[in-house]
């Protein structure tokens, strides 16, 4: 269970990215966050694993207030939260395998991993993760030699290595074509349904959100403007979230 209470983020420049956001996410949910560009989706997701320091508010995950953690405790918490990024955020010059293995860094001995050594069972686990996302044959290629879709699979495999109970996905398919988008989101859906991993995913397209979400949260100018099931978003709601001039684009 993830509970966010009165979360506010004000950036150094004075931009208020989140304004008093509160919400609850039950274990096993697939929550999709929608909203216009700049509405605060990325900020919200990054506050949850403290890649961004919240200005105010509390984030309680499994009974622990994440905002109070520091150092070792924060790292221990982070290692159970997988994160997937729009730009994949792979280390481009490293091999696919190294990128996947880096998902294990929170668990292994810092000194051994600092010289590039991982336990054998972690290497096997990485191979397993690559097999799961269907790119085992790419393991020894450099990450930047892969296509966008393949790179995002590496990103998922990296998250899988963390044995996550929560996955934060920040627009994971925004740089991919529709068919590839679906295949990536299906991996997340599979994880969510079969392993019970809670997924928080921001998406641009409402059609995609409808197809995968168990629940939708909409942000506008840093505030929650909608929270409910996909079916509840009608034309009026849509205009409320995206503005009067917006039209729906379907992605199938």
């Amino acid at each position, binding site marked *: 269970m993830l509970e966010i209470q009165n979360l506010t983020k004000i950036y150094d420049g004075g931009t208020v990215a989140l304004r008093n956001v509160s919400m609850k996410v039950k274990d096993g949910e697939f929550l999709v966050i929608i909203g216009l560009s700049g509405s605060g989706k990325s900020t919200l997701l990054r506050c949850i694993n403290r890649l961004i320091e919240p200005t105010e508010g509390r984030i309680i995950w499994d009974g622990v207030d994440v905002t109070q953690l520091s150092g070792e405790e924060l790292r221990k918490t982070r290692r159970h939260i997988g994160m997937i990024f729009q730009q994949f955020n*792979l280390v481009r*010059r490293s091999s696919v395998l190294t990128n996947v293995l880096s998902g294990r*860094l929170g668990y292994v001995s*810092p000194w051994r991993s*600092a010289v590039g050594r991982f336990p054998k069972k972690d290497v096997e686990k990485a191979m397993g993760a690559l097999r799961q996302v269907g790119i085992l044959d790419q393991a020894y290629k450099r990450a930047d030699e892969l296509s966008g879709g393949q790179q995002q699979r590496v990103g998922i495999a990296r998250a899988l290595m963390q044995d996550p109970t929560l996955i934060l996905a920040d627009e994971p398919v925004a740089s991919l074509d529709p068919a590839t988008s679906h295949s990536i989101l299906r991996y997340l859906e599979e994880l969510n349904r079969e392993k019970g991993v809670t997924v928080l995913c921001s998406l641009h397209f409402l059609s995609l959100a409808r197809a995968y979400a168990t629940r939708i949260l909409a942000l506008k100018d840093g505030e929650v403007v909608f929270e409910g099931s996909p079916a509840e978003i009608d034309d009026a709601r849509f205009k409320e979230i995206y503005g009067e001039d917006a039209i729906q684009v379907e992605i199938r």
Partner: protein
Amino acid sequence: MSAEEDRRQEIPGRRRGLFSSRRLILGIVVAVVVYAFAWQITEIDLKKLVTGAPDMVHIVKQLLQPDLLTRDKEYQRAYADFQVPCGTASPQQPAASESEPYLVLSYLCGEPGQPLGVEGFNFRPDTKGILRWIPPVGTRRSLKRIDADSEGHFAVGIAIPDVPASEELQEIEVELKWDVGLPYPSDTTKIVLSKMVQTIMLAMMATTVGVFLAVPLSFLAARNLMSKYRSTMIVYFLIRGVFNIVRSIEPYIWAIIFAVWVGIGPFAGVLALGMHSIAALGKLYSEQVESIDPGPIEAIQATGANALQTIVYAVVPQIVPPYIAFTIYRWDINVRMSTVIGFVGGGGIGFILIQWVNLLQYKKAGVAVWAIVIVVWTMDVVSSWVREKVV
């Protein structure tokens, strides 16, 4: 006429003003004067391109015949006596021999300027040599080239040289000279090789100095790392400023400065190139730090990695390959520069090259030039190959 049209009328008029014929003529006159002055002051003299060409051709020819290899020599000599003028001592024709080389003169005493025939027998066939006149006092003179035929025979005519009259006998020497054994590196080659080693080591030391100081400084000169506080920003501007100033001073100038400071020699070269390398590498490195993609750092942190792991897995892979590439690139430049830094007192092969050029020993200089060409070219190929591999 509307205001709009008015303006349209006006603009071309003003344009014409700018390029009015009076200004144009004035401009041309000024340009002609400036160029005429420049022509004078730079002492341009196209005639010299033609009149100087033979000298140039001569030098190039010598450079193209570098004194690279040498072979051991063997000599064969024979002598004959002669008297100037005829007097009491009566010189003898050398004794004929079956196997030994000997000379026969057309006569045995005479006055300077008279023609004299010299014939040789039993010399080494098909071998070249020289005929010398050795007076009893004073310097010997080379009078004639000798070319023994397939039977080891030759016959040449000389004029008796203008030697002072003497009771004592003059001596005529014929010396044939030929190569034996395999060619081996000449002394010049050995000097060039040892200086080349010095040159490459000089470049290596300079690059090493540059790397060791530029790596830490590059972080202090990276805006993204230093922009947080005012104090760090001051450090950033200071280091950037120093980099720019040091870089804008040519390594040759640094070499002159350091040659005065620590004396002419390779150490001055190391300091000069090292100095320039710190600034050049520092700038390249810091730009690399500035262009680090924060995405992977964020992603690695999100996995629960600690600071060390984040550096090893997200920062190092991003900056080390380009650092290596820039370092090799710099070493390449340093090797190139170290070959000529000796011209201004920086040691290495340039130092010996400029000496040979000043002494007009172009065949020796040729060896140095070829060595430089080979080393620079090799370095170029190797460095671009390694850079391709690394990045």
